[in-house]
């Protein structure tokens, strides 16, 4: 297995505030990595550096063989291979569900409308929302919105999927449906990086868990080891609060 994500000595500051201090990690193809940590620990910022939604202050981030910290890398091309799902869904409210999904395949990948619609309908069936194709996002529940957002990202046929607290804004009864779709995706061999507070999901689905605090990866391990036998004091303290 090759490393599809390679991060070396990543640093990220907002003004004087250094949020990521020194992050190095490699992620293999088909690996599912969950990132856990307290609010403000830098875990979301770390994720957003992987597709350069945040400018990278220092260090190197190589995605699918492309060094995205280089000025001459076409970031749009890299992002076509990296889907992202946001905490607040960020569906386009002026477009129907179907239009949300076909926009990027048609405009960024130049796929024909007929083909894009066909793929979109397959993906909607996969996330269990085939009947919502012509609905507007405003008429959907949170869980439905998030499943549409996942379908929208998958429509680009990405090699990597990034999830930024995908269930944090959902009503508790909606969380299961979304996690189910994500689990299915993991089973199909998608490379996934998931920032999450869902420890159950991390334990059950992920291959590896990173615990981030104050801009560093404090501890990383396979989920059973990390949850049952944490080595670092800070990890123990964090887990005692969330488990």
């Amino acid at each position, binding site marked *: 297995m090759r490393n599809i994500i390679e991060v070396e000595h990543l640093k990220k500051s907002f003004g004087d505030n250094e949020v990521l201090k020194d992050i190095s990690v490699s992620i293999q193809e088909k690996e599912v990595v969950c990132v856990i940590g307290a609010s403000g620990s830098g875990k979301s910022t770390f994720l957003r550096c992987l597709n350069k939604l945040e400018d990278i202050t220092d260090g190197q981030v190589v995605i699918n063989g492309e060094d995205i910290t280089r000025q001459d890398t076409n970031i*749009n091309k890299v*992002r076509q291979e990296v*889907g992202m799902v*946001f905490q607040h869904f*960020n569906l386009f409210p*002026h477009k129907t569900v179907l239009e949300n999904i076909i*926009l990027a395949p048609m*405009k*960024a990948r130049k796929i024909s409308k007929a083909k894009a619609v066909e793929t979109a309908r397959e993906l909607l069936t996969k996330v269990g929302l085939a009947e919502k194709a012509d609905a*507007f996002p405003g008429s959907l529940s949170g869980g439905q919105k998030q499943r549409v957002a996942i379908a929208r990202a998958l429509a680009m046929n990405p090699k990597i999927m990034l999830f930024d607290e995908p269930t944090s804004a959902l009503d508790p009864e909606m969380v299961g449906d979304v996690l189910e779709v994500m689990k299915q995706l993991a089973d199909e061999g998608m490379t996934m990086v998931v920032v999450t507070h869902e420890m159950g999901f991390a334990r059950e689905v992920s291959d590896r868990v990173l615990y981030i605090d104050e801009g560093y990866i404090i501890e990383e391990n396979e989920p059973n080891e990390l949850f049952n036998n944490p080595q670092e004091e800070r990890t123990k303290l964090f887990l005692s609060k969330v488990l």
Partner: protein
Amino acid sequence: MEVVINSLPYLWEGLLVTLKVFIIAIILGFIIGLVVALLRLSPVKLLNWLAKIFVDVIRGTPILVQLFFFYFGLNSLEFVSLDRETAGIVTVAINAGAYYAEIIRAGIQSLDKGQNEAARSLGLTSAQSMRYVILPQSFRRMLPTFTNQAIISLKDTSLLSVIGIADLTQKGQVQIAATFKAFEIWIAVGIMYFVVIYLLSLLSSFLERRFRLD
């Protein structure tokens, strides 16, 4: 009453000139506004700064002074020759453009930044994100403010009568000079402006309902 009815064909001609000037100026003004707004938001400092100066200068001077500048000022230069109508249209267009620029800029900036992030994360370029995601949503929100500015611009065209453009206001003055019926003619002129503006606001409410987001 008879005087007014006899004047109507002349006033109607003036109204057509007013509408023509208004429509051309508002379209040009919108294009100017869009370009200036995008420059205002551009990461290039110089463009940013030029756009800001344009907006500040236009908003900071009276439209009548701008009109005199474009018609008398520029025409006093040897190599410039602007006819009345061009000078008038340019004045109203540039004036509306400066206000539109601010309306559009505010509309774009008020949009949740998650919208742009979602579009960019899918691999769309910043221009594609602007065109397919940001502007369509911003324009819906801006519609009421757009109408407001369009109404102001329509009323501004009445100032063009002072440089001799034969618009509704100027035709009114001419008819009064011929008939001495100032009271009746100004009421007729006022009603004609009012009807056009009222239709404009009806169109705006229709568009707002048509493009409502939910």
